[in-house]
């Protein structure tokens, strides 16, 4: 399971968050931001606080309002009511300053197929006013990072999907933005390329002074990349926290045990107060517990004490899909 592997740096980060609490520095803040189209409310009074230098995920099904939300933060759409600040600038009143502080990778491709990769970066650099004396250096730096190799000087129509995506992400970085917006960065990419993009985003966040705000409807993506996740459904934020806290709050780890005497073990294990629920068939027994990682050794000991041989034991944390279901009652893929 992917979600068992939480990098140490990420754990360390949570500690800081919980210690510093309110004194956190937020680079994006929204205040009841709302977008209505006639009688349809795409984004409904959303309050978001994105900590500086984090990777923040907006997770939700298609049509939940993710792109509308991000578009308002990027100044592409004007909010119907409420507001937001990005890098300290108001998205309506100081749209231009906001634009200069952000990089954007749109959900749909935004490349000119008859320009080369390098030309895209050059064009972007001059549109964003990167001083001409450092422009070349920046472009080389980005090209190095996105590893286009010799393809950098070919027309983008010859690029693969992954290369196009990398170029778009790289382009968003040329002017050293404070915030990088990624709208469904791995949509339509093959698993291999998707992992590359993930690695790339993680590396970027570690090496640069940058906050990444991304939308996604891929659970593993949010789980693996994001320091904090806001779950959005039908235009409203349902819950926001770190993926690990969200999952922990479900209090629903599953321990799957294989034993030689299943009936006896089932009967005995029911008496333990940390076991919430027991179900199973034949030799495989599933136990619903909380914080399962601490319970594996005691369970094995308990079995031994009762003369039961444990053949195998497996721990499963809930994934964000389970979290989503528990808050909305639907699977993310079944959203509107």
């Amino acid at each position, binding site marked *: 399971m992917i979600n068992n592997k939480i990098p140490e740096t990420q754990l360390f980060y949570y500690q800081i968050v919980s210690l510093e609490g309110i004194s956190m520095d937020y680079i994006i803040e929204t205040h009841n931001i709302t977008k209505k189209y006639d009688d349809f409310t795409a984004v409904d009074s959303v309050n978001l606080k994105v900590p500086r230098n984090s990777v923040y995920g907006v997770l939700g099904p298609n049509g939940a309002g993710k792109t509308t939300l991000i*578009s308002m933060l*990027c*100044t*592409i*759409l*004007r909010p119907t009511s409420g507001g937001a600040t990005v890098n300290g600038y108001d998205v309506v009143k100081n749209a*231009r*300053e906001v*634009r*200069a502080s952000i990089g*954007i990778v*749109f959900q*749909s*491709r*935004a*490349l*000119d*197929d*008859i*320009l080369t990769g390098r*030309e895209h970066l050059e*064009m*972007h650099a*001059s*549109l*964003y*006013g990167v001083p001409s004396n450092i422009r070349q250096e920046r472009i080389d730096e980005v090209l190095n990072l996105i590893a286009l190799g010799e393809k950098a000087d070919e027309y983008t129509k010859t690029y693969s999907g992954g290369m196009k995506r990398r170029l778009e992400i790289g*382009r968003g970085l040329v002017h050293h933005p404070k915030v990088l917006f990624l709208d469904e960065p791995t949509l339509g990419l093959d698993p291999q390329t998707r992992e590359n993009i993930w690695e790339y985003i993680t590396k970027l966040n570690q090496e640069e002074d940058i906050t990444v705000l991304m939308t996604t409807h891929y659970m593993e993506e949010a789980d693996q990349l994001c320091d904090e996740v806001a779950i959005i459904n039908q235009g409203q934020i349902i819950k926001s926290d770190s993926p690990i806290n969200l999952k922990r709050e479900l209090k629903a780890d599953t321990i799957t045990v294989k034993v030689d005497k299943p009936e006896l073990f089932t009967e005995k294990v029911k008496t333990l107060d940390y076991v919430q629920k027991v179900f199973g068939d034949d030799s495989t027994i599933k136990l619903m517990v909380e914080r399962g990682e601490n319970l594996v050794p005691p369970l094995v000991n308990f079995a031994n004490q009762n003369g039961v041989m444990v053949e195998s034991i497996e721990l499963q944390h809930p994934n964000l899909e389970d979290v989503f279901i528990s808050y909305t009652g639907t699977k993310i893929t079944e959203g509107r």
Partner: protein
Amino acid sequence: MAELEGIYTIWLREMKRFVRYRSRILTSVVTPLLWLVIFGTGLGSAIRFGNVPGGYQAFIYPGIIGQTILFTSIFSGVSVIIDRQYGFLKEILVAPITRPSIVFGKAIGIGTTAVIQGVILLILSFVVGVQMTPLIFIACTLLMIPISVGLAGVGLLIASFTDSMEGFNLIMSFVVLPMFLLSGALFPVSGLPMLLQSAVYLDPLTYGVDALRQIILGTGVIPLHISITVIMVFAAVMVFLSAYMFSKREQELM
């Protein structure tokens, strides 16, 4: 400074696209030549056209230059719709430069490509046996600038209102062809029925074609200074109007 750089960047992209789509350059030269050689010769031998030295072929030569500029400018302007469908317009619109700069860059870029095509036609004047002097050449080139930029403005203005290329045929039927046919590119505009006459004078291209014809052939129906003034005003109005519309409709365009 940043705005000038933005305008230059947008202009540069137009240039690169123009140079790289080689087929477009080829058609832009071949199509007018077909008109001049086939249509000009064909109709020219069927009618008596005594009032211009060089005959009918020479008469339509400035008109065909006007037509080339018209088609190139309007369709390049309208091609912003394609940029929009490919999402590239978004990339430009979220940049921290003003909307008018984007429109100016576009209009100047399109204008440049149209003028280049016009200049190629000026060089090909020997095909229709028209005398070309350096002075005529320079005067025509200068005159083509406001005509091209103004028509690019028309294209951009249409693009700011149109969602998809489905409207392409409508633009062809209701804007481009009427402008071409009413401009006097193919026939003299004096002595037409009243209603048609008024329509002719409402067409901005009429003034462009008439001015080109006066410079190249020395014959025309509108005083040159009036034509030039109308063209300049038209260019300024169209560019500023589309700059205004891009600013106003920014949200819809992205």
